[in-house]
């Protein structure tokens, strides 16, 4: 299959629908949702458990994952009620992602509750959707996690009758998936149950072991057709994934800022708290400014996804370009201002640095998203250099 390339427009003004912008604040409902999720992850996923799990046999927090579905019912938020969902929107999904990011929780939310859900919802695959929304089934979209969202990409998986074959490297959130959603070379989407010999999942030593990757080989695996023409649905799902990932990155950045400020207030050097040093305070202030910007663009991306706005591709790439850099920078500042202790394994900072770094590369690096924006808003690349 081929995800169609974004269509360039003549001027960026075409993207501006007047000056009216969606609501960028958090609603009361969203704040309640945030409180529930935060209460759950605080109780069930303290960072020491997250750290221990990065070297445990079972990398995914299946208990937390089950509770998110069963107890909180936040896995089907964007799905209509008549399809088994909660009838909310991607805005609420983004709030959940923010809290899961803040806790670097090891659950396949982005893969199953965002991207797999988005593609199935777009296609209208109601049966599978219901399972996902209830938390009974976990699914993963079979794309390399580093693939630029929504961009030209050709799957190498091929269909042959009711089977599918192919190799996909570095797939996220597939470690505990029951079902793989496989885009194929001919533009279709098929579903593959993992409990068959023809599916091999090889764990990858991942930069971020709180979202461990696998390499997947399908060797004439039994496959069921979901949709014959799923190109645009897959493209849409990855763009929604990028939009929601920005909120997760925001949560990471917020934790890092908060941890840094707290540490500076506690730790003493030369008989004074670190917070009493102006150079360090100014760095926190700059970081705070960046976090406020990350919040605004992440909210805008979530709102565009919720409204299915034509500006969604711009909003998603904007959010990825900005929030990726902010989250990484926040984690780097958090480590640096913690000094040596922040460089040790037995401190949570590295979990956030690794999550921030791998999230920045996921679904396209900030460089790739900026290049894409150049095409979307008509800021073209230079002409090729004339050779001498």
């Amino acid at each position: 299959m081929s995800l169609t390339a974004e269509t360039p427009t003549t001027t960026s003004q075409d993207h501006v629908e007047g000056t009216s912008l969606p609501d960028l604040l958090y609603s009361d409902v969203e704040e309640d949702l945030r409180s529930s999720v935060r209460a759950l992850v605080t109780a069930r996923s303290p960072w020491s458990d997250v750290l221990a799990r990065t070297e445990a046999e079972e990398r995914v927090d299946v208990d937390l994952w089950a509770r998110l579905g069963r107890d909180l019912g936040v896995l089907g938020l964007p799905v209509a009620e008549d399809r088994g969902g909660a009838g909310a929107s991607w805005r609420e999904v983004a709030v959940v992602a923010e809290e899961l990011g803040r806790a670097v929780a090891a659950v396949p939310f982005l893969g199953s509750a965002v991207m797999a859900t988005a593609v199935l919802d777009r296609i209208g695959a109601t049966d599978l959707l219901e399972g996902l929304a209830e938390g009974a089934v976990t699914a993963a979209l079979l794309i390399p996690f580093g693939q630029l969202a929504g961009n030209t990409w050709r799957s190498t998986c091929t269909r042959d009758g009711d089977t599918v074959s192919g190799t996909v490297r570095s797939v996220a959130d597939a470690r505990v998936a029951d079902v793989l959603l496989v885009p194929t070379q001919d533009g279709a989407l098929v579903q593959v149950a993992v409990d068959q010999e023809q599916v091999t999942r090889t764990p990858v030593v991942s930069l971020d072991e709180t979202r461990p990757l696998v390499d997947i080989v399908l060797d004439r695996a039994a496959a069921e057709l979901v949709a014959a023409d799923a190109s645009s649905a897959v493209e849409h799902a990855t763009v929604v994934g990028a939009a929601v990932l920005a909120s997760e990155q925001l949560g990471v950045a917020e934790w890092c800022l908060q941890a840094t400020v707290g540490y500076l207030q506690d730790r003493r050097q030369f008989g004074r708290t670190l917070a009493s040093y102006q150079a360090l305070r100014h760095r926190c202030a700059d970081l705070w400014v960046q976090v406020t910007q990350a919040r605004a663009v992440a909210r805008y991306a979530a709102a565009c996804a919720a409204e299915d706005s034509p500006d969604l591709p711009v909003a998603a790439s904007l959010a990825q370009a900005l929030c990726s850099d902010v989250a990484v920078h926040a984690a780097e500042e958090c480590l640096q201002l913690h000094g040596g202790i922040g460089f040790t394994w037995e401190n949570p900072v590295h979990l956030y640095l690794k999550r921030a770094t791998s999230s920045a590369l996921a679904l396209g690096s900030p460089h790739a998203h900026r290049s894409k924006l150049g095409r979307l808003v008509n800021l073209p690349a230079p002409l090729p250099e004339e050779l001498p």
Partner: protein
Amino acid sequence: MTAPAPPQTPAEARRLVTAFLADHDPRGGDDLEFLRARFDAGLARVSWPHGLGGLGASSALDGPVDDAFAAAGAPDNRPHSNIIGLGMAAPTLLAFGTPDQQHRWLRPLWTHEDVWCQLFSEPGAGSDLAAVATSAVRDGDDWVVNGQKVWTSLAHESRWALLVARTDPKAPKHRGLTYFVCDMDAPGVDVRPLRQITGETEFNEVFLDDVRVPDDQRIGEVGAGWRVTQGTLMNERVAIGGATPPREGGPIGTLAQHWREHPEDRTAGLHDEVLRLWVDAEALRLTSARLTQQLLAGQPGPEGSGAKLAYASLAQRTSAAELGVLGGEALRYDDWTARRPVVGDLAERTPGFRFLRAKANSIEGGTSEVLRNIIAERVLGLPGEPRADRDTPWEDLPR
């Protein structure tokens, strides 16, 4: 008589405008009479109080009312030529002035009969505004003012000035200040143009030599000048949360347009920088929009300082990128003559002018360093710098 209920929705506000316009021809010719009538009808700014140009409505309705008048082709009060009057003097008078003072000054201020300026900064009191040395000494019903102010925009066009002066040099610096309104036509007021690195004379120095200010032009109590000043400056920052411009509405628009129209000026490194600036400009636009939404929702946030900080950096980087895109052509300037700036001139001039002018963005209205201090202390709750000057009599401080 009880005041009528203020309008609650944009539609209600627009109905009031329609009713007013039925009685007042917006193209009748006498703009001043029209503006005065609009003020008297409470439709100048509907968020201001009854009897003072408003109807006590939500500030969210001010924009729709202005828009409705503009749509009808009504004359406006040239708000961009009286920014300090409308943005700082008016809110200060409303918050701290006596009823007499409010009635005396607000109408001609709003109708643009009187332009206002502020006499705050001094050569020895910039970021440390509370260090002002300009003195005001009581003499009968008047105060006699002596000193030198600086960075005063519009002083040469202004009828009135907001003035902060020291009335008690023996008190600690924040406690010896008093706030006045100064008549810029009074004897002893000498306005001299101050030239900037752009060649322009956007600002002024103002020398005050035995200037008599009647005590009824004092705003607030004697010695309470710092509190009033803080109120004024808070309005300066809130003003940032105004209407959200369209995408590419700021300096990025000039740069993006040039990039689209001049493929020959594109290089790889500049491409990445232009895209980064586009991202940052759009992020700042959305951040400012979110701040406005917070204000309208009654959740005033501290993001204003952050937005100003980010704006200054963005304007400076954007204008530097313009120079880079132009390359050798940017070695040329347009005009170094000492002259008063023209409103809206920024986009018309050379990139070199924008580059130089943008250097002031991180200084004027609170330096970026002071804003970082404010964010660290007031938003993040980190401790402030140790202060040696809080409790010492002003006259004993080292200078």
